[in-house]
């Protein structure tokens, strides 16, 4: 572990922001104030943060329906995201996109995406642009254990290999696609990375509930891909703490499964244990960040609640640049 104190603080803070954002939404959604379908990222924070801590705004990522974590980790503004989820005109997408379509292209965040598997081909294009521009930039497609079965994901992997695009396929295996287990839906049983490897690229595997595992794995992956060796794939084994979407009765979960996961597979707990164990950060550091983040989220929610609402005219704008 060669991370500086600052880097550790930052990583923890990023994960905590995502966790707090999602846990708060889980509560707020029950009040009925928030519209639409929302898919929470709690439990998977180590993946988004462990990946994005290696990137800056010139690297691109593209996300999924479960996009909040990736957006936050890639630098989207917390307050504007919350406003977007509330449907405000001041939100990231002026209230037109909502939870499933938050994007900040200037930050290299090419969008959450409501269509499973749609992101991977787009990431290949962003990688081709990076290749054209030189400079070792990469593009990353986040996909789930469900999305890995979609034809578009396979096509994207083959195209990336053929064009030697600096594209990284990050598979977050949280063991479920909606209400279905990955052991059923992925024909290769428990092996997503192995299938990717057969497409002709190097693959890695890591523990997606352990920030350090993700971070260190990604260091190797990025070295490989930034070095001009074409695409790569990584499978991170991780956990989803909430239902598929908010409202999911989760009858498919094993008895006590979520309690157990929250106990032994929580990336925040793991991080804290490891880092305090190694005397790198102290309890006070965590406490301070936790409080700060709670305030940040509190503020973002109260601002979102009172932020300007869109008006009927707003429906008509932003379809075309010129028409």
């Amino acid at each position, binding site marked *: 572990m060669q991370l500086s104190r600052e880097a550790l603080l930052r990583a923890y803070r990023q994960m905590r922001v995502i966790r707090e954002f999602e846990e708060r939404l889980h509560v707020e959604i029950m009040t009925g104030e928030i519209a639409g379908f929302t898919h929470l990222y709690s439990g998977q924070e180590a993946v988004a943060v462990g990946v994005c801590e290696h990137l800056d705004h010139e690297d691109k990522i593209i996300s999924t329906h479960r996009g909040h974590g990736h957006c936050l980790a890639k630098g989207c503004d917390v307050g504007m995201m919350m406003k977007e989820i509330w449907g405000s005109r001041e939100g990231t997408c002026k*209230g037109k996109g909502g939870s*499933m379509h938050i994007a900040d292209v200037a930050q290299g965040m090419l969008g959450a995406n409501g269509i499973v598997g749609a992101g991977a081909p787009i990431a290949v294009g962003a990688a081709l642009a990076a290749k054209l521009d030189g400079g070792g930039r990469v593009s990353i497609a986040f996909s789930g254990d469900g999305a890995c079965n979609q034809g578009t994901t396979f096509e994207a992997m083959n195209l990336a290999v053929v064009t030697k695009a600096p594209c990284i396929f990050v598979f977050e295996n949280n063991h479920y696609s909606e209400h*279905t*287990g990955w052991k059923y839906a992925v024909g290769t049983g428990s092996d997503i990375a192995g299938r990717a490897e057969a497409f002709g690229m190097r693959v890695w595997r890591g523990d997606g509930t352990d920030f350090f595992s993700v971070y260190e794995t990604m260091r190797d992956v990025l070295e490989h891909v930034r070095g001009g060796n074409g695409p790569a794939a990584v499978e991170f084994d991780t956990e989803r703490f909430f239902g598929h979407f908010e409202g999911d009765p989760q009858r498919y979960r094993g008895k006590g499964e979520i309690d157990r996961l929250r106990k032994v597979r929580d990336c925040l707990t793991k991080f804290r244990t490891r880092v305090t164990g190694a005397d790198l950060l102290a309890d006070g550091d965590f406490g301070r960040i936790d409080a700060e983040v709670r305030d940040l989220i509190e503020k973002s929610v109260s601002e979102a609640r009172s932020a300007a609402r869109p008006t*009927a005219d707003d429906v008509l704008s932003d379809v075309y640049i010129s028409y």
Partner: protein
Amino acid sequence: MAKMMYREAVQNALFAEMERDENVILLGEDIVGGMGTDGGPEAIGGIWSTSVGLFGKFGPDRVIDTPISESAIIGAAAGLALSGKRPVAELMFADFIGVCLDQIWNQVGKFRYMFGGKTKCPMVIRMAYGAGFNAAAQHSQSVHQILTGMPGLKVVMPSTPADVKGLLTQSIRDDDPVIFLEHKALYASSGEVPEGDYTIPFGHARLARAGQDVTIVATGLMVGFCESVADRLAPEGIGCDVIDLRTTSPLDEEAILDSVEVTGRLVVVDEAPPRCSLATDIAALVGQKAFASLKVPLTMVTPPHTPIPFARELESAYLPSADKIEAAVRKIMAWR
């Protein structure tokens, strides 16, 4: 008669047809739920609860949960149909036709013609369509205009639980490929459904309200809006014929034309975007075949030419509503 919800009528028709004919096979994502999990199968019975209990009753060979791969789902249904089965595939959201349109359009819809009429492909593709849940641009769309334009497909759009039952039963027994469009915002609506086995023939519209002044043509969720407009205007002496098309392909041209011949006024209400749509289709039909009866300009009430926005205010501004329909009717009643 039994009172049931639209979604229950779907389940009910599927159940009855599966019991009646062992060739009826369901497939789709999470239509069982819980495959390969500790909670075990039948965790959900379809995200719209339209296949609840079917896996338990008919087992894994007839209720097939699939990975996320819509082209494979529709293709597999096509292969089943060509092999003598009667598959019912579920697409979950109509918006997902984008990832499997080739199978629907260039395969299923064309086999019979391309093969010189020597085969049949009896299958149903069910999908949930429509706005009203703030599900934004990729989970709220109406797609009947796209599919109605494709020769070889039949397109069904029930607006009531009773019609769901009769039309879905007909769809499953029909020997041609059928697109069965279920409106998300209607799943929880309820109504009387006749007991037992019955079918509603395709191409026969339902007269939801009768009147002499304006013909209003609609489908799905829009029908209810039009009915309430008819009810609002009736006391003022404005009589609306509200025609619920039930199927857009085949289309009950006669019902529309007969009505317009009496009223001389047409309002088409459509939830899809306005260009190259069912609204333009009906308007053009009337402008071609009932021109002489027309007293006022053809009128369409549709969303604007934009994707579907997320926020509540935006989605309501986007969608046709009873108020907008009423305004359109009043406008043509006042024409000239």
